[in-house]
Structures are given as structure tokens and as C-alpha cells.
């Protein structure tokens, strides 16, 4: 059973068709990349997957379960978490507090209004593990607002990872990260545990081809090509529509 399957997913904004009959299948444990030129509808698809947008028609199945009508925060509990192309962080909190918050929420302590944060060892141990994995140890007490951009980017992924998703959606994780911080970010993404399925939305072709074991190409709101990286790279239509234009950009 695939971890994620969309069936005839469609989104229209008035007369504009942003996504048309998208049938996307992501296998369990895959490193799947969704690519496409600007305006191809990648963000629309992501927003439908996470529940921010309601599809006009079509269904979304997560691990065999129809989640089309499930609200965003419930999808997180069902095992799907995302990062954002533009950082969506809690600027006034430290990485430690932010990650602590996510872990508390996941363990069902978020509604607890009497216990102090940090008094449960299950929570703190997990926070430590995540802080280390995302190389945030040095800055864990620093307010997020003043972190270097690369560290903020790492925290962006760390927050989604802390939800312990089965499926992690990374929306252009390397976007805007300066060259010096890039290596650390890519190494962290490479080192994500194998049991977490990753769906990567990316512009950066180097990252896509070094990371993904399967690639889907979205053009004009429709799935264009879907296959192994070698096949996609060789496909003349992809070259024409996408790689030819965007690689030199």
C-alpha cells in the first residue's frame, strides 16, 4: 500500500485550473521529488495535501485512509507533517522551546495547563535527540529571530520532524540558504531516518537528482512524467518543457 495516494485531485479558482486530475502515488520509505516550473501548481498540490486548501474534486489517501475532509492539525496527528518554503517559525521562542512545544503537543500534553514545561523526562529526552539531529545544540537557547538563516531553515525542518511524521513534506528546504550553510542543511536532509517517507518539492536540480529515488514532474497543473531519476532526466519532453528552461536560470 502506498503511503500517499491522490485520486483525480483537482483545484479550480474560478476559471483557472491550478491542478488537474493529479494522480500522485508515493511509496512507503521513498525519497520522492515533485518538480515543475514556476506556476506549475506544486504549491497548490502541497496545500491540498496538508489541508490548507480544499480540493474541488478528488480524494487524498494517507496510508489507505481517506483524509480529504480532515482538518490540517488532525492530518499532522495522522502522520503527515510539512515544512514551508518561506520560514514559518515562532520568532520569539528559542529552538528548545519550539521543539519542546511540538513534542508536548504530539504526546498529548498540549492542553495541560497546570504542569510546567520540561517536567516530563519523555519530552526532554526527545527534545535533546531532535536538537542534536538538526545541529541546533549550539543555538538552542537563542531566540529564533536572531538565528542565522541556515539554522532557521534547519529548525523549520526540525519542527516538522518533531511531529514524528510517517510522511514528511519538504517545500523547497534549500531555498535561499547561503552556500556556506548549505552543506550542513543537505547533510541533515540526507540523514533523515529511512522509515520516514519524504516528498520533496524543489527547484534545485542538484538536490533533486542527488536525493530523490523517484521524480514526478508537474506541468500546468497536470502530472507530466513520473519515474526513476534516470528516466526523467532522459525524457525528451521533460528536457523541452522544464530542464532546458530552468537549469540555466
Amino acid at each position, binding site marked *: 500500500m502506498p503511503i500517499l495516494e491522490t485520486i483525480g485531485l483537482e483545484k479550480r479558482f474560478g476559471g483557472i485550473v491550478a491542478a488537474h486530475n493529479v494522480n500522485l502515488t508515493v511509496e512507503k520509505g521513498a525519497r520522492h521529488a515533485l518538480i515543475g516550473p*514556476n506556476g506549475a501548481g506544486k504549491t497548490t498540490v502541497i496545500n491540498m495535501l*496538508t489541508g490548507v486548501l480544499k480540493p474541488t474534486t478528488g480524494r487524498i489517501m494517507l496510508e489507505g485512509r481517506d483524509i480529504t475532509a480532515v482538518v*490540517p*492539525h488532525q492530518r*499532522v*496527528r495522522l502522520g503527515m*507533517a*510539512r515544512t*514551508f*518554503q*518561506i*520560514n*514559518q*517559525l*515562532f*520568532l*520569539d*521562542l528559542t529552538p*528548545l*522551546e*519550539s521543539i*519542546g*512545544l*511540538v513534542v*508536548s*503537543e*504530539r504526546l498529548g*500534553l*498540549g*492542553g*495541560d*495547563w*497546570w*504542569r*510546567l*514545561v*520540561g*517536567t516530563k*523526562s519523555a519530552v*526532554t*529526552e526527545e*527534545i*535533546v535527540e531532535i*536538537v*542534536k539531529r538538526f545541529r541546533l*545544540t*549550539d*543555538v*538552542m*537557547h*537563542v531566540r529564533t529571530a536572531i538565528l542565522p*538563516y541556515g539554522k532557521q531553515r534547519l529548525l523549520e525542518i526540525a*519542527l*516538522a520532524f*518533531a*511531529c514524528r511524521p510517517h510522511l514528511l513534506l519538504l517545500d*523547497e528546504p534549500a*531555498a*535561499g540558504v547561503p552556500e556556506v550553510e548549505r552543506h550542513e542543511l543537505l547533510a541533515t536532509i540526507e540523514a533523515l531516518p529511512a522509515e520516514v517517507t519524504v516528498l520533496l518539492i524543489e*527547484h534545485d536540480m542538484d538536490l533533486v537528482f542527488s536525493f530523490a529515488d523517484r521524480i514526478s514532474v508537474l506541468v500546468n497543473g497536470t502530472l507530466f512524467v513520473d519515474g526513476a531519476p534516470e528516466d526523467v532526466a532522459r525524457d525528451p519532453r521533460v528536457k523541452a518543457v522544464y530542464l532546458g528552461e530552468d537549469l540555466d536560470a
Partner: protein
Amino acid sequence: MTVKHGPVPADDVSAYLKSRARWSPLEIAFWIFAFATIWLFPGKYLILKDAAILALFALSLDLILGYAGILSLGQAAFFGLAGYFAGLAAKYGFINEPVIALVCSGIVAAALGFVTSFLVLRGSDLTRLMVTLGVSLMLGEVANRYSDITGGADGLQGVDIAPILGRFNFDLYGHNGYVYCLVVLFVCFVIARRIIYSPFGLSLRAIKENGLRAAAIGIPVKWRLVAIYTISAGFAGIAGGLLTQTTAFCSLDVFSLERSADLLLVLIIGGTGYLYGGLIGAVIYKLLQDWIANLTPQYWQFWIGLVLVAIVLVGRDRIGGGNAALRAAVSRLGARMTGRPAALGNAAPDGN
């Protein structure tokens, strides 16, 4: 800020997280002084009592404004409803003991808060401002209409408050009344403080800072806001109950817009989002009001207005500097009214 290197033991993290909630020496000094006023200023009980009630009322607004980013002009609805409840409970004797009556009036206000929260949480700042204002206006008019119960414009007469815990009478000098208010304020403060340092409180801060992301990490945003709005209403209700009990009187002005607006002024003076803003602001506001009213009994509001203008224009980082939430809310509101988008809090290099 400490920067650590190498491996971090879980104990460290736990200690750090817990240390956020530790009482600082400044806080302890604040409360020692607050209780010392009982002996220090025996002639000032009435104004101190008013300040304590206003402080608790302002604390209720700070809980939603400073921690959840909800701007409200309708806290008087809860204050007034609970005020009348406490008055009627004493007048008709269905709850005689003041502490129990006070808790009950808080619960009644919280119930109203829960019901109205669904209206309030729908819109943006401007919508919320109007909905909260509208609710308190309606309640005020309902109280006016049923003057046979509420006493209407004359106020609720014949309220006789029993001794606190069956022992302490409300004396003429206001000593017991003030101690009562101070103790209630302290208890409520401790509860509020506990709430904001809990995982629930942390999730509220996250929602205030970035609701989109809060939902994306699995926080049920709407229910958290409903919860804090309900709690805040309960606190406002307790403040209203205190006013009725300590004055043995309740009139329609408990619902007035001025009462809700005063709260915003108090928080502008004291700052939001660090719990003490309402307390410090209330004391300053009351003292200022008292002092100016002594100087010019007729035109005291002119000077209050002038002071406020000066504070808002000049004072950027005042006592604690925690007024960022209020300023953000006001700037969002301003942007909305002039049709310009508010400045993005999260500007980051775009990947496109």
C-alpha cells in the same frame, strides 16, 4: 544567553525549561511590597482596593491580548454579568458566603465567555473588536430592560454581603475588603502564571506568533483560543464580583464601554505579555487618576488623555517593554483600516 557546546544531557534541557518559570527576586519583592501596603498605607485602602480590582481585570485582558493576540473591547460584559450575579446572589441570599459567590460569579462569566468565544474567534482584529463591544452593549441593555431585577439606572440596592468565610466583616475603613481583593488577586495571578508556563501556555504563544505553523505542527488552534478566552472571561468575572462585594452595590456602568477601554489604557501603560503589565499599569493609572483629580477635579480626563498621548508617542520601551503585542495589534488594525497590508513579521529570502 548561554551557548553550550557538545552533547546536552536531558537534565540540562529540563532544568532550562523549568527555570523559565522560576519566581525571580524582583517578582518576590513585588508581592512582598503589595502585601506590605496593607500596613504601609492604612488611609489609602479605597484607592488600593480599586487598583487591585482593576489589576485583576487588566490581567484578564492581558491573558487574551498578550498571550493569544485577541484584541477585545468587551471584557466589561464578563465583569458586569459577574458583578450582577454576585450582587443578586447576596441580595436574595442564594449564595451567602462571599468566596463561594465569587467563584460562582467567575464560573458564570466563564460560561458566557465560552459561548461568545465562537463569535469572537471568527474574524480578524476589527471584527473581534466590534463583536466583543457588541456583546457587552447588548448585555448592558438587557440589564437596563429588566430593571425590576437589576435595579436599572438606580443600581442594585439592598445588597448585603455576609462576612468572608463567615468571620471577616467588610468594615467601614475597607481594611478587610482590601485584604480580600489582594488575596484574590494573588491567587488568580498565581493561576495565570502557572497557565502561561504550561505546555498550554506555550502553545498559545505559538498561536499568537504564527497561527499557520501552529496548526501545521498539530495544535488545535481554535480550541486553544476558546479555552483561553473562557479562562480570561472567568478572571474578568471574578474582578466584577469583587467590585460588587466590596461596594455592596452594582450599577449599569459595570457594562460601560469606558470600563473596557480603561483596560486597554492600563495595558498600554503597563505593557502586555508578561503578566505584570496589568498590575503595574492599574496602580499607575489609579494613582494618576487620583492625583490629577485632586489637582483639577473638573478636567482630570484632559490630563489623563494628555499623559496617554505622551506615553504612546514617546514611550517605546517602558516597564518591562512588553507592549509589543498591543502595538502589533494596533498596527494591524491601522493597516486594515487604511487598506495597506501589515508588515510581514516573517520576512525571509524567497526561494523563487
